[in-house]
């Protein structure tokens, strides 16, 4: 039988260390909504989402109450819209109508984000995919809850540099169209390499074509729990450190697995995966940077940061995989700047640069995330940064992503407020040397060789 100490440990995690289930994301396939008539297509999309997800929020709240664990977000991911709309959409504005439909459906079922305004163009772009990408700035400026992602490369296909170039321009345009809101549109736009089909986390969630008609994916979190557990092993060697992270990750993931099982039972939808990610929030004590500092760094960004993060990421996975039958999504430590108070502090004390963050993305999940940069950064520079991240993902066979916000009218030293879970961020400097000639070459970077590994 369960004892006093165990019950207290769990409840302390929830109450004081901010353990929560970050998201229950329902993936819904829209492939059967395809129709050459745009109005019919929009109606089918709206009907399918609102009927499948009508109970998602209430079931999420019910589970949260019964188990006493906060379930922070309920979200939806859908099939990449570039595929769904390819027969009906002849202009970018046609795709914008679908974005509006997604937004309306999300509001109807009361989820806070819907992901999947996406295109997968790692090798080439179809005309429809290019139209969708050109529709992104407007789509993100006229909707509130729609998130967009584009996969521009993979280990198997190489990097589509035409798409990389276009996305640099689209990020600039999104920033411009949402400049009255500190270019907030860019916070809902991710450029991926090796994007997973079953990621439950926004803004990069979409429901891949390899998935079933509908599935439930759950993202757990708990940087505060890991940080607190590590406080009790200060000064101990790496073996003890790793054991502690593993055990904690196991416990956190079990909660996610439990919530996933309950959700699918009550919603009658099959289980996809649990995403074992350490996802920080701007709240104090919910920070990945603080874990790295607890491991022994004066500030995140100091020499040793990449090694500490590699260790953390690996141990979280090792502990987590045993706790869930199906693990997927991004699964690893997130290092967004604006959503992590420890990262923000490190940038403000000049300990953390864009280049160090890039190095950190080599060993953890995702990539350059929620970083505010000067508004006068050129589209070519954005494309260059995307290409660098995509190259890291391509060569290392991992997911990498870029979510940069070139804040119109702001410069180094300014601060940008995004609000809520998106947090706030100091504007960080970007290398000013040009990569225009590189980006303008056109074509693609071939897939890397899979032998002679050095």
């Amino acid at each position, binding site marked *: 039988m369960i004892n006093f100490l165990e019950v207290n440990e769990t409840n302390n995690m929830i109450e004081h260390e901010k353990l929560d289930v970050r998201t229950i994301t329902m993936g819904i396939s829209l492939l059967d909504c395809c129709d050459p008539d745009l109005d019919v297509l929009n109606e089918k999309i709206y009907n399918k989402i609102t009927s499948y997800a009508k109970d998602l929020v209430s079931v999420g709240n019910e589970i949260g109450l*019964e188990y006493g664990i906060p379930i922070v977000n309920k979200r939806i991911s859908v099939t990449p819209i570039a595929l769904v709309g390819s027969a009906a959409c002849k202009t970018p504005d046609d795709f914008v109508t679908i974005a509006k439909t997604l937004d309306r459906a999300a509001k109807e079922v009361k989820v806070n984000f819907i992901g999947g305004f996406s295109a997968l163009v790692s090798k080439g772009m179809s005309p429809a995919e290019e139209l969708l990408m050109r529709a992104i700035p407007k789509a993100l400026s006229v909707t509130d809850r729609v998130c967009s992602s584009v996969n521009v490369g993979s280990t198997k296909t190489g990097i589509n540099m035409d798409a990389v170039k276009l996305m640099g321009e689209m990020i600039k345009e999104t920033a411009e169209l949402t400049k009255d809101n500190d270019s907030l549109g860019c916070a809902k736009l991710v450029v991926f390499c090796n994007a997973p089909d079953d990621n439950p986390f926004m803004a990069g969630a979409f429901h891949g074509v390899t998935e079933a008609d509908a599935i439930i994916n759950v993202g757990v979190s708990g940087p505060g729990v890991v940080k607190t557990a590590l406080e009790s092993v200060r000064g101990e060697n790496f073996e003890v450190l790793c054991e502690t992270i593993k055990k904690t990750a196991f416990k956190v993931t079990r*909660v996610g697995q439990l919530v996933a099982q309950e959700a699918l039972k009550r919603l009658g939808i099959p289980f996809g995966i649990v995403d074992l990610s350490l996802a920080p929030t701007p709240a104090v004590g919910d920070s990945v940077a603080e874990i790295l500092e607890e491991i022994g760094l004066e500030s995140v960004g100091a020499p040793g940061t990449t090694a500490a993060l590699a260790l953390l990421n690996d141990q979280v996975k090792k502990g987590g995989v045993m706790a869930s039958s199906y693990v997927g999504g991004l699964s690893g430590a997130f290092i967004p700047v604006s959503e992590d108070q420890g990262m923000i502090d490190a940038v403000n004390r000049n300990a953390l640069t864009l280049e160090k963050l890039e190095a950190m993305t080599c060993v953890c999940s995702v990539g350059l995330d929620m970083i505010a940069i000067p508004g006068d950064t050129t589209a070519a520079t954005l494309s260059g940064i995307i290409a660098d991240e995509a190259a890291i993902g391509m060569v290392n066979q991992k997911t990498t992503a870029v979510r940069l916000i070139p804040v119109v009218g702001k410069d180094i030293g300014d601060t940008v407020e995004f609000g809520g879970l998106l947090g706030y961020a100091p504007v960080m400097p970007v290398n000013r040397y040009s990569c225009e000639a590189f980006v303008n070459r056109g074509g693609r970077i071939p897939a890397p060789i899979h032998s002679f590994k050095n």
Partner: protein
Amino acid sequence: MNKAVITVVGKDTVGIIARICTYLANNRVNIEDISQTIVQDYFNMMMIVDVSQSNKPFEDIVNELAQIGEEIGVKIRCQREEIFTKMHRI
């Protein structure tokens, strides 16, 4: 599974257990185990209960116990047992 764990934390006062047990009895919730300590005037109790005989929806039990807690100045949580067993047992 119809077991739940009730935890009560707060300043010690007369009649905390009586009040909670009366509520549970009225709603046909059976107490299987109960342990309690007082640390520096702070009342700390844990109960394992079986709710399978109760006609009340579990959600209502959670909310009403929380309400009783507010009335007597302690924090009462009622959670399904699995969150603890899943986390602490392999």
